């Protein structure tokens, strides 16, 4: 195996290990599972803008890998995106589109529009025919008003007044369908989103832990991280485990003091012409 030390690639995916992996799989090697977000993500449009909500559990098969992960990703100061599906895909896709939007803002000098983010996301996902498994709820407020969209892994999109995605989407959608009405106030919107996420947390096994909420209005975005903590850890014993020093058998110890870094600053002498 020659690991050629080439310069960083130009970007995009690199497929050079595929042939090797296929050969390994034919010999019986199982590919390690990816971390999924197994989520409940929701969004709704209220009278002044958009409210997005997400749970905070990340799963790796049946195990909870992260009890408090962030699923509401930043796209632009006025646009946020919740992601469900494979965790690496949602993070990579939202970071990539966020950078492209920033470059676009520098080029045009204007605030980003939600449809720009939408088009960038859907064209990327369609190009990979659903293999980049990212299901997103994109919401934001721009000069044309508040917008809420859902993006499916194959690249199709929907524009809706309220939307849910992820494994807990049915539980959350039932709450929305019964309680949503047009012209909600900010408090009602946040309450409804929290109720929908809690429905997902308590009724879906792939969602859990806490509720994150993000409220986007014209000119202001509020990210309420851990807005509700309906699953506190109450069973922890107050004494905890305490180990006495020397309880672990040590075969050998090596202590290396770290080198002090000395900064040399030159006196500011002007250069002679």
């Amino acid at each position: 195996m020659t690991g050629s030390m080439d310069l960083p690639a130009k970007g995009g995916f690199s497929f050079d290990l595929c042939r090797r992996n296929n050969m390994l799989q034919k010999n019986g090697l199982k590919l390690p599972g990816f971390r999924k977000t197994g989520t409940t993500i929701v969004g709704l449009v209220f009278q002044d803008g958009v409210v997005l909500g997400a749970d905070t559990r990340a799963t790796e098969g049946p195990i909870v890998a992260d009890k408090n992960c962030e699923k509401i990703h930043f796209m632009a100061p006025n646009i946020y995106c919740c992601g469900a599906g494979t965790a690496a895909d949602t993070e990579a896709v939202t970071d990539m589109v966020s950078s492209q939007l920033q470059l676009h803002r520098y080029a045009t000098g204007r605030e980003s529009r939600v449809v720009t983010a939408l088009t960038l996301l859907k064209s990327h996902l369609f190009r990979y025919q659903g293999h980049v498994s990212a299901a997103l709820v994109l919401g934001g407020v721009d000069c044309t008003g508040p917008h809420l969209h859902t993006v499916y892994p194959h690249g199709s999109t929907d524009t809706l007044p309220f939307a849910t995605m992820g494994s807990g989407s049915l539980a959350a959608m039932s709450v929305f369908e019964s309680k949503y009405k047009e012209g909600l106030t900010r408090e009602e919107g946040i309450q409804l989103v929290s109720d929908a996420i809690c429905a997902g947390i308590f009724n879906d096994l792939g969602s859990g832990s806490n509720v994150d909420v993000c409220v986007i209005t014209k000119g202001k975005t509020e990210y309420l991280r851990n807005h509700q903590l309906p699953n506190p850890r109450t069973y922890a014993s107050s004494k905890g485990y305490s180990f006495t020093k020397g309880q672990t058998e040590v075969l050998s110890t090596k202590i290396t003091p770290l080198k002090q870094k000395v900064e040399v600053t030159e006196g500011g002498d002007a250069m002679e012409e």
Partner: protein
Amino acid sequence: MVGKNCFAIASDRRLGVQLQTIATDFQRVFKIHDKLYIGLSGLATDAQTLWVFRILDSFWYQRLVFRHKLYQLREERDMKPETFASLVSALLYEKRFGPYFCQPVIAGLGDNDEPFICTMDCIGAKELAKDFVVSGTASESLYGACESMYKPNMEPEELFETISQALQASVDRDCLSGWGGYVLIV
């Protein structure tokens, strides 16, 4: 595992192919710079393996050391752990459709000796944590052991005891890990 202005990173020492042990002193935690370490665990499932590839993927860290050295030459300083984690995540995600078979655990001290730990799955999905991160064949046991044994703001001596006990307890319940452990405390 995170302690008070310090971190500990530990791994077991067994290297094996299915149920056969090849080595009992295999080093899995590698140094990137004085205050940044990365541990690379192999496959989480151990079906019939071609162990050559598995070990070579564990030596993937040499590519990371190379990238860090380039960074040091350009920026004239060491990489911060958060930056390094993003680098590893990007390198792993590049191979999204033909991934490397390793799951890294990254631990480092950032600005003001603030400890930083994170783990990733084999395609680069970062999981930052404030208390502990685990990976490997015994990861399910490790989650349980660390969850119960961890206490916030531990001093280095206590942190060493806790992480060793958690590692030994979990590894004792896993056939594919064992033969003691290496623990690094910074």
